[in-house]
């Protein structure tokens, strides 16, 4: 019987993946994928968290499932474009449904949210199981993803030059688009996130920005669900910015924090998974959770220890 924790073989865990050129190419793709997934999610996530929409991300990530399934049934392939359209459509429909239920019926926001996305998800699971075994997407893969399959995916060629594997390429594109959009529309995103009255008086449409953000979220989720699964996407959305918020209070700093954090998550998760021989995406989130725990304890802004220390000090100040 194998032990649950195998002995930590330093050489095998840390060095072996990079030893030969073939291994290096293979594993670099996995880690690169991880970095880009957590980076794009982290950037979007900062705004999602600031708008208190964290669970909207949860809802949309579940809600895109029927869209994916329908796109797959319609085209019989995993081609990026139809999948993308289907998922975005389903994601937007999901967020429309939630808002409609919230506004037009006596249901409260949380109930509307829970009701919509679980129904969408159930529909998606039903469709996927109906497709049977010939489908390349199976429900489990969607749920917790397998980033390790990244290098296995078919490559995309430009003429005769190989550019890279499909998921890697698509997430790369999405990451670029997100960085671009955030830099261009930074001001609009900030204003609508933090001061809706001001943004209305400035003539910005809060609704447009909201749905734009939802669309961006759907795109990110579509590009990353294959590798991290729909539920762990939420972790990637929320963890970086909340972790960073224990050290920084300003938005740019939190956004920049996503870069080192995502690199750390990916490498950490990769090594952890290699050691324990378990799901890479899962261990990435476990690493993210550990980072969050450390930040929670030691963070300079509102960390537990800082709070204890400062509170004592202020009490002392008062008594003097």
């Amino acid at each position: 019987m194998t032990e649950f924790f195998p002995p930590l073989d330093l050489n095998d865990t840390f060095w072996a993946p990079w030893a030969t050129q073939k291994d290096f190419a293979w594993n670099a793709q996995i880690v690169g994928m991880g970095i880009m997934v957590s980076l794009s999610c982290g950037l979007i996530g900062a705004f999602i968290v600031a708008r208190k929409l964290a669970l909207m991300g949860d809802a949309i990530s579940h809600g895109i499932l029927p869209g994916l399934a329908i796109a797959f049934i319609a085209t019989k392939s995993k081609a990026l474009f139809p999948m993308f359209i289907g998922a975005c459509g389903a994601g937007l429909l999901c967020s429309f449904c939630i808002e409609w239920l919230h506004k037009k019926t006596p249901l409260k926001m949380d109930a509307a949210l829970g009701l919509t996305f679980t129904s969408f998800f159930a529909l998606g699971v039903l469709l996927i199981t109906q497709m049977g075994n010939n489908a390349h997407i199976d429900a489990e893969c969607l749920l917790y993803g397998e980033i390790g399959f990244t290098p296995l995916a078919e490559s995309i060629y430009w003429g005769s030059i190989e550019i890279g594997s499909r998921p890697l390429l698509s997430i790369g594109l999405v990451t670029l688009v997100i960085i671009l959009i955030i830099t261009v529309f930074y001001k609009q995103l900030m204003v609508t996130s933090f001061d809706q009255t001001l943004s209305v008086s400035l003539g910005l449409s809060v609704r447009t920005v909201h749905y734009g953000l939802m669309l961006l979220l759907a795109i990110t989720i579509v590009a990353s669900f294959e590798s991290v699964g729909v539920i762990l996407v939420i972790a990637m959305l929320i963890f970086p910015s909340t972790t960073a918020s224990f050290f920084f209070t300003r938005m740019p700093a939190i956004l920049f924090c996503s870069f080192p954090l995502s690199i750390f998550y990916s490498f950490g998760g990769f090594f952890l998974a290699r050691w324990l021989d378990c799901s890479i995406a899962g261990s990435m989130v476990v690493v993210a959770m550990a980072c969050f725990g450390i930040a929670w304890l030691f963070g300079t802004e509102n960390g537990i220890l800082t709070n204890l220390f400062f509170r004592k000090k202020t009490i002392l100040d008062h008594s003097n």
Partner: protein
Amino acid sequence: MGVGCGLMGGFVVTRKLSLFGDTLSHAVLPGVAVGFLWSQSKNSISIIVGAMIAGFLGVFLISLLKKTTKVGLDSALGLVLSGFYAVGICLLTRIQKMEFGNQSGIDRYLFGQIAGLSTQDVWAMGISCILIVLITTIFYKELLVTGFDHGFARSIGLPVDLLQYFLWMLLSFSVITSLQVVGVILVSALLIIPAATASIITQKMKSLLLWSALLGMVAGVIGTYLSFLGGRLPTGPLIVLTSTLLFILALFFHPENGLLFKWLRLRGKERKIALENTLKAVYQELEWNNFSQDTVQLGNLAKRRRISMPEMHLEAIHLVKKDFAFLLPVKDQVLPSENTLSLSPTGWSEACRIVRNHRLWELYLTNEVQYAADHVHEDAEKIEHVLGDETVRKIERILSNPKTDPHGKLIPSQQDIEQGYIDKMIAKNLP
């Protein structure tokens, strides 16, 4: 099981904790895995204990995050949900690679399959269902009070926090026992959807709980039945989709709160208001002619109501249908706007009533509520359609049966109505 979840859901939804159930159902996953690892077999008891502990840890972490940090509740829920889930996934994938892992099909906990239940599982489920029903009936009052009025519950000496934890325990209990049937993700659907449906059907807590349990049961039975029909149909999603269907039915077709009937009622009211506005326009047109003619031109009416000619024509047809007016026969070579219309006796009295309501209210606002005379029209436009006879008498008494409104126009009197229009016209135009 549907009953248990439905009952719990009633409490959950009314406390705005819907997403709590969702979080809890994800958070129990590592517990399931550890429980499995502990006993190295699919033993219900160790799994349930493990799941309970994980669920509690999750709940505890959420409240800790809420208390010690500035992280919002939604983010806290998301953090715990995804973090715990990730740990669970790691453990499960690890277990599958260990020697005894493959025997169990432990990933059934993710989606659930009712056919794979053992007798032991069914017993556990039955017992938990009975337990939940019992506890909710015994502690109904306490749970109700703490759910709706925290401060009051505390002031009458109820252990609010204890009850809260108690509820959470019940919740995780029902989540865990339903896991095997519907799987981790869809448990929350079973918590939320029947209760949400019930909240559309009724407003009272007791009947809400009953409905919610009933709906849960119906969805469970239908969903399971459907899954037996086809070969590979999964149970969980079918149960959820059935309850979604029930929700949609209730949302649209419930006689009182259903959207369809609400819409129909609203439309009925809108049409009534449009009709009354047209009648008022006819009255004003007649008045403008000093009651010297008995007909009005549709074109003039359209101008008064600020609507297009085709719309006006439809309105006129409505009036005729309701026996409020006659469309006079069309003479040769006239424009549509020169068609004429004359009021029937009922139409006349109805038009008088509306104008009277309008002008009385204007007068009431200026004299009694001290509004400026140029501010009262908008208000009267709305109120004229809803004033009842009794209120009108009351206003008349307060204003001591006035003759004119603040703008100096005559208020149509009871006598005008009884006299009828033709007689009024004749009386007016007699020297």
